[in-house]
């Protein structure tokens, strides 16, 4: 009767957590609407409002609405990643995670299942927004589409990874909201999503340079216009380096998260 033949499979566990993420999302319409409507609203209001008032430095022909289009996409990814990982706080408090932790699978499987679930949702939402790209004069070709989706996946993984790591250390969702306002939103604001690095004062430009999200935004700008050069000169490294930094950040977050989930010295509850 003991089930010695049933070796727990990491992939099955990852799939299980991924599927749960999707099911929960589909069953919660508010989340679906909230994470896409808020950035959309921000995009239309800010983009239109700033249109005649300011011309971002380093920008030649793009309108502000076009300028913050990639930034809005970043915001959609960020919001979806946050909404997805905020459930980690509840899962830990309510006990769902306790039962997952004492299952016979490696903690990296738990982290990856959650990250991939959040990534799927984030990329899905960002792709809905991608439909609007031609409206602001961003031409979408097959090449740029494929590259954009790949880049979105990479960025979403690193954002969900960051969200997971933060959520795991939180006692309450209120704490997560505080971190969101104090860390994640400033990270987004200073990622070149809102204003370019070239026009910022020196000290701020340096803050932007050490912000990993800056390279994600830059990567997204580059692939959206591929094979053309994006109209904003931003003084940042090329696509490969930007993607590399984003991937490295995601990897570090996933491994770090796996480490804290597997830490039994503190009982992680």
């Amino acid at each position, binding site marked *: 009767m003991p089930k010695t033949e*049933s*070796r727990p499979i990491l992939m099955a566990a990852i799939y299980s957590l991924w599927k749960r993420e999707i099911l*929960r999302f589909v069953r919660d319409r508010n989340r679906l609407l909230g994470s896409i409507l808020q950035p959309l609203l921000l995009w239309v209001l800010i983009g239109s409002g700033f249109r005649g008032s300011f011309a971002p430095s380093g920008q030649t022909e793009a309108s502000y609405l076009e300028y913050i289009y990639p930034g809005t996409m970043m915001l959609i990814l960020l919001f979806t990643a946050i909404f997805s990982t905020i459930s980690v706080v509840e899962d830990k408090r309510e*006990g769902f995670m306790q039962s997952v932790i004492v299952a016979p699978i490696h903690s990296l499987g738990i982290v990856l299942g959650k990250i991939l679930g959040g990534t799927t949702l984030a990329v899905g939402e960002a792709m809905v927004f991608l439909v609007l790209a031609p409206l602001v004069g961003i031409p979408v070709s097959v090449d740029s589409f494929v590259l954009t989706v790949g880049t979105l996946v990479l960025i979403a993984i690193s954002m969900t990874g960051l969200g997971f790591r933060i959520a795991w250390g939180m006692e309450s969702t209120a704490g997560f909201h505080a971190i969101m306002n104090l860390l994640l939103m400033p990270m987004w604001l200073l990622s070149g999503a809102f204003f370019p690095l070239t026009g910022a004062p020196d000290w701020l430009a340096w803050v932007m340079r050490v912000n990993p999200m800056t390279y994600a935004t830059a990567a997204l700008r580059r692939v959206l216009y591929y094979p053309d050069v994006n109209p904003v000169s931003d003084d940042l490294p090329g696509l490969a380096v930007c993607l590399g930094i984003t991937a490295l950040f995601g990897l570090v977050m996933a491994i770090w998260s796996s480490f804290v989930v597997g830490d039994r010295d*503190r009982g992680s509850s």
Partner: protein
Amino acid sequence: MSQPAHVDAHQSSPISVTGLSHDYDDRRALDEISLDVSTGEVYGLLGPNGGGKTTLFKILSTHLKPQTGCVRVFGHDAAREAPAIRARIGVVFQRPSLDPKLSVFENLVHHGLFYGLTGSRLKDGAAEVADRLDLRDRLTDRVETLSGGLQRRVELAKALLPDPGLLIFDEPSTGLDPGARKRLWDDLQALREERGVTVVLTTHFLEEAERCDRIGILAGGRMIAEGAPGDLKRSVGGDVMVIQTRFPEDVSEKLKKEMQLSSEIVDGQVRITAERGGELVSDVYRCVGDLAESLTLGHPTLEDVFVAHSGQRFEIGDEDAEN
């Protein structure tokens, strides 16, 4: 990687703990605990909150790594071989571990996938535990729509799905009405008989502890008594008389002076343990009746066992909350 303990894992007793101590910062939660649980036994860890049973539960369920001492579950060292232990235990937590937005079936499937169950084995297994616990009609219902008692049964079904040899259950009756409580115990008894499952549970309900084959009483991080509930009660000896009074010292002194009866004051109550308490009761009433609010006589209960070993009433420890 060699795992010598794995070889005789099936013969090893479900739980063997020796000299286990655990500290949280500067507070000692467990102090030199030792216990053994044998196959098919229902073993209860009884104690007030703060007594250490939650910490012990976390260590046995591989949630927390043991600090000092040796903990073996089916022969596997809990400090180093958590994955091997996890594959063979089912854990039911005090707090709900189900996803309320998913159906009963989806919750079961989700759990089974973590234990290497797939395809028809997973579906059949889920249907079987659902049948066993009378959840067949509820499989498609979302967990959030179920009553507390039903949710608890789904928790149990989930833990049993991978067919564990040992079930570790934290406070089984918490939040259940008497009917659901009885039902849960009937299920546990039946499971033990049908599947030979060993059950270790924590509880702060005396009546729940009564139903265990053996109990270990934890207070202040120490195992203050261990044995079958009946044996423990008999060890107190004779009958127990409890006098409720506002003047415990006066009562105790008067009993000693006038009747040569020794008594104990425990949290404001005067307690007398005596053979043939029935014959004594009217004399005691005559002696101190005007100082007493009530006088009760009974055979020793588990509470009396607790009092005898800890010098405290059982409820008192309830005040300080556990970490």
